């Protein structure tokens, strides 16, 4: 049981940070920025390179996340901001194109193979009945800290309040003296940092390779949408709901019910289960699970 809970948390953590990054950026820059998942690829690669050069891992990771944050801001100012003027669909396709370019660069510089950080594999330890490794704990701790920090900023600081105001009505925010462009830069930076950190946490537990980005698109979008696009903290819960479905679908043995020893849902349908849950959830909560915005006609 505790293994199940642990798996759930771990799986949630896989996509939560990147989904939060996507959703946070969406709240102000109204288009689903596919480049976010590529930020999650660049982050670990930069960390890897910096660590190879001789920097301590933590320093490398910090530098890499900041660099990705800056990259996100620059891309936003030079590309997405322009495209967005003609609509969100255009900006989204533009972000896809940026993703291709990122892949091209990584393909030339890093090649298509998997790599991993030079940490010794720690043997799993028993933690309340679950098998846990130190790297997994680190990864979870890092993600939780980042999410907590982001939530605190969003809800308990002036800049957080400005973000929410700008998200609600950018023109009015400017009319109340809020530097909407500045706020957008801040949130874009934050989303770059979160996405990069998400990628680093992910590759801390496993590998890093140039496919991380594209592979993340579907799960990250699913989580962000389920949580309600533009509602960053909802994305965490969205990720958790998907993880829960998958963990339950994969590990429930239906065999005893039908008088057989083992009868599992075939693993090749697990992905489909989480998509089915997504559709079902949306049918009952059409604007995402965790949005309670009042809509007046």
């Amino acid at each position, binding site marked *: 049981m505790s293994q199940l809970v642990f798996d759930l948390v771990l799986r949630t953590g896989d996509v939560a940070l990147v989904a939060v990054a996507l959703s946070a950026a969406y709240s102000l820059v109204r288009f689903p920025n596919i480049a976010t998942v590529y930020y999650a690829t660049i982050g670990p690669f930069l960390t890897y390179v910096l660590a190879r050069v001789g920097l301590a891992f933590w320093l490398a990771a910090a530098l890499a996340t900041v660099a990705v944050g800056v990259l996100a801001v620059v891309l936003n100012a030079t590309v997405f901001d322009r495209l967005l003027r003609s609509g969100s669909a255009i900006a989204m396709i533009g972000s896809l194109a940026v993703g291709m370019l990122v892949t091209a660069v990584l393909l030339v510089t890093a090649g298509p193979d998997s790599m991993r950080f030079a940490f010794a594999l720690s043997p799993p330890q028993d933690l309340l009945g679950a098998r846990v490794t130190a790297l997994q704990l680190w990864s979870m701790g890092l993600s939780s800290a980042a999410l907590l920090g982001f939530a605190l900023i969003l809800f308990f600081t*002036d800049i957080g*309040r*400005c973000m*929410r*105001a700008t*998200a*609600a*009505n950018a*023109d*009015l*925010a*400017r*009319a*109340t*003296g*809020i*530097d*909407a*462009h500045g706020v957008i830069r801040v949130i874009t930076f934050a989303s770059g940092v979160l996405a990069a950190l998400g990628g680093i946490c992910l590759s801390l537990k496993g590998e890093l390779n140039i496919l991380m980005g594209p592979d993340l698109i579907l799960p990250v979008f699913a989580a962000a949408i389920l949580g309600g696009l533009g509602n960053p903290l909802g994305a965490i819960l969205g990720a958790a709901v998907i993880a829960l479905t998958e963990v339950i679908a994969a590990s429930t043995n239906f065999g005893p019910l039908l008088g057989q020893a083992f009868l599992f849902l075939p693993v090749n349908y697990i992905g489909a289960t989480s998509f089915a849950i997504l559709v079902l959830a949306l049918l009952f909560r059409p604007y995402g699970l965790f949005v309670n*915005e*009042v*809509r*007046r006609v």
Partner: protein
Amino acid sequence: MIEVTGLRAGYGDGPDILHGIDLRVFAGEIVTILGPNGCGKSTLLKAIGGFVEPRAGRIAIEGEDVGAVPVHRRIREHRIGFVPQTDNVFRTMSVAENIMLGARLLPAREQWARFFSLMDTYPALAGKRDRRASALSGGERQLLSVARALIAGPTVLLLDEPSAGLSPVMMDEVFDEIVRIRERTGMTILMVEQNAVQALSVSDRAYVLSLGRVAIEQPAPELLANPTLAGLYFGAAA
């Protein structure tokens, strides 16, 4: 206080909406802009606020040419309170949050004191402090927007049809409040109004726009007293 000379402006790459506007508001004055629908009143107010870029001409506030100053800096540096005509609340935020956003630039200690005194002025909002702004009725939103603009005690107040959608009592109260504030703080007020009679009765001067040009500029009492103009520009019904 506000000085607009030869202002031409429009949206995107569309045609000019304002064709050379000259307008002046002196410190402590209440000035009303009247005119038919679509003549460019809101556009003028938006240009002064910085939401529409001038194509020609000059906009100065407190003597400073603000043509190139971005909105948020104009608002902050010249302590402007702005109430747009539409979309004038933060829908996803609560009534209290909406108002507190207006108070953001005040010192932290003053913010809540002002908030509570404002709540006394607007009992209609006090009862709905924690309601989301998107749930408010049309009139309640209008009040909320005015309250948000007033809380920081601005030097200049730009109001775009503050009375639209307000019930007769409320409308009286809003205009009374405008007069009171001016007496208390000497605030400069520029407003666009369709309810000409009420607006003129609290104003010092008025401009009447027509097709993006200033058609008339007169002291408010004179305009109010002129029956032909009244019939032409603010309705036979008045």
